[in-house]
């Protein structure tokens, strides 16, 4: 099995901040907006270096989305930033009319996605955002797995013309992907080749999938692990090629099982190659306060949950 090394735990939101710093230096059309959460989004360096290209909108997310749409009309590439909950559900109609339906080149960049923002609890967590954004025609949905990949994704979406939802998180997680990686929107990354089961994971759950695969390998189960950083458009070929070898699949994501990666994968399988699938995801529930580790344990979002799902799906082959 391919060995991945944690280069040191880092938060994906800091990967976003690092990507913004670089974009600030390399792309004069990139502008940023924030709704009173600059520190949480880690964009201080971008603001310090490009004060004229930053707009503080205050606690007014609807206005932020509209202003972002308007900035594109002058050729700017706006990155609208806040917590995932307020970046999607709170302003769904603004995104729908002024951004998606209007084909605007806005990058909606959302931190603190999922339950792992932790102690603030369910009002600040969101487990439905992937579903909300992927249902919008023309919206690209990206959920990178670690610091390095989030930085690469941030830089890549500036070059992509069209609305993008970029989702990342608060907790420090293993940083294991290459620092100089290429990020191709819509192209899954095969992390480990295997023959018994396919595990496709997104976001923080990719590292957990690798941990699970290592444990399973020790039990004689060969896992193919794929990092789906782009949920829409979905790399269907990568998934179908893999299940052609393994015959069963586990999807893993920090999101409700309704509307997330698992559901997109299930549709692909139903259309092309009906295959046993198990979902590692939250089970149509809100979150609660707790540490990230406690929440991942309680809501079944860690390597142990993935292992259990693999054992279950293998019996259905």
């Amino acid at each position, binding site marked *: 099995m391919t060995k991945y090394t944690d280069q040191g735990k880092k938060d994906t939101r800091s990967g976003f901040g690092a990507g913004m710093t670089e974009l600030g230096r390399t792309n004069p059309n990139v*502008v940023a907006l924030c709704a009173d959460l600059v520190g949480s989004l880690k964009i201080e360096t971008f603001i310090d270096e490009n004060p*004229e*290209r930053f*707009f503080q*909108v*205050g606690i*007014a997310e*609807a*206005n*932020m*989305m*509209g*202003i*972002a*749409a*308007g*900035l*594109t*009309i*002058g*050729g*700017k590439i*706006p990155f609208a930033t806040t917590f995932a909950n307020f970046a999607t559900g709170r302003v769904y*109609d*603004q995104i*729908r*009319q*002024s951004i998606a*339906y*209007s*084909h*605007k080149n806005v990058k909606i960049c959302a931190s603190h996605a999922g339950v792992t923002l932790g102690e603030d609890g369910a009002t600040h967590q969101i487990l439905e955002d992937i579903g909300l954004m992927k249902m919008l025609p023309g919206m690209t949905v990206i959920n990178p797995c670690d610091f390095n990949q989030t930085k690469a994704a941030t830089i890549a979406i500036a070059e992509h013309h069209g609305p993008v939802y970029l989702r990342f998180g608060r907790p420090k997680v293993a940083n294991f992907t290459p620092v100089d990686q290429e990020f191709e929107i819509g192209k899954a990354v095969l992390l480990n080749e295997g023959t018994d089961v396919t595990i496709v994971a997104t976001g923080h759950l990719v590292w957990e999938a690798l941990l699970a695969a290592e444990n399973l390998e020790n039990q004689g189960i060969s896992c193919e692990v794929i990092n789906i950083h782009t949920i829409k458009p979905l790399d269907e070929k990568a998934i179908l090629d893999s299940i052609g070898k393994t015959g069963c699949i586990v999807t893993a994501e920090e999101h409700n099982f309704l509307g997330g990666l698992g559901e997109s994968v299930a549709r692909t399988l139903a259309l092309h190659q009906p295959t046993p699938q198990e979902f590692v995801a939250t089970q149509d529930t809100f979150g609660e306060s707790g540490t990230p580790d406690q929440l991942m344990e309680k809501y079944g979002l860690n390597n142990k949950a993935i292992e259990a799902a693999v054992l279950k799906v293998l019996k259905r082959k």
Partner: protein
Amino acid sequence: MATISELEELVVQVRRDILRMVHKVNSGHPGGSLGCTEFFVTLYNEVMDLKEGFDMDGHGEDVFFLSNGHISPVFYSVLARRGYFPLEELNTFRLINSRLQGHPTTHEGLPGIRVASGSLGQGMSVALGAALAKKLNKDNHLVYSLHGDGELQEGQNWEAIMFAAAHKVDNLIATVDRNGQQIDGPTEKVMPLGDVPEKFRAFGWDVLEIENGNDLGQVIEGLKEAKQRTGKGKPVCIVMTTMMGNGVDFMMHTHAWHGKAPNDEQLETALAQNPETLGDY
């Protein structure tokens, strides 16, 4: 520059366009459209600095955003008569496969439209973004927007109004169509807006009023005055009082024609009150 009588002819012809468009498909919003005809005709033919052709970014020209998208008939008619797209296309209003959707959209690539509107309350934010982009691009042109008064009940406007003053967006002229009516009745009955000019002033805007937004002379003067007030550190607001259904006697003094089309007989009466000037499409 057109003469007043040329603009007046255009106003009457646009009224005919509006009436015929909504009548043909038996749907659409004639009341607010007729109320804003003088404003649109003046804006697009006398006030805005426009370049030839259309591109989405609008570099080097003034741009306009219609926030209350349901008055699309007046917008489409004025755009077509300004040469943005063929006049005959007004025949396709609200029909299947048309670029003239019930509410304006960029989705079908209609020249002149820069953002979709219809879900109310979002236009001022978009106009602000475009105005900020002009400042970043060192483009000294202006951004205009139009908002229904009932639309001010949407909270997003007040987020935008607050932002505009705080960020000194002084290349924006936002106009409120104060016709006092909305679908369910008078605005002051449905949800009172109170003293709209004072509210904008309290939020730090420079406000001027057009007492009769259906008096072409007053509209021209008001828009030109607003233009003079830009570039002075404050966003500019025009509160313009209009009559819904203006120019058709039975459509005035009521909110009944907010979203209702005239039947054959009513159309004939309405058109008789607005005899053809520049030729029907």
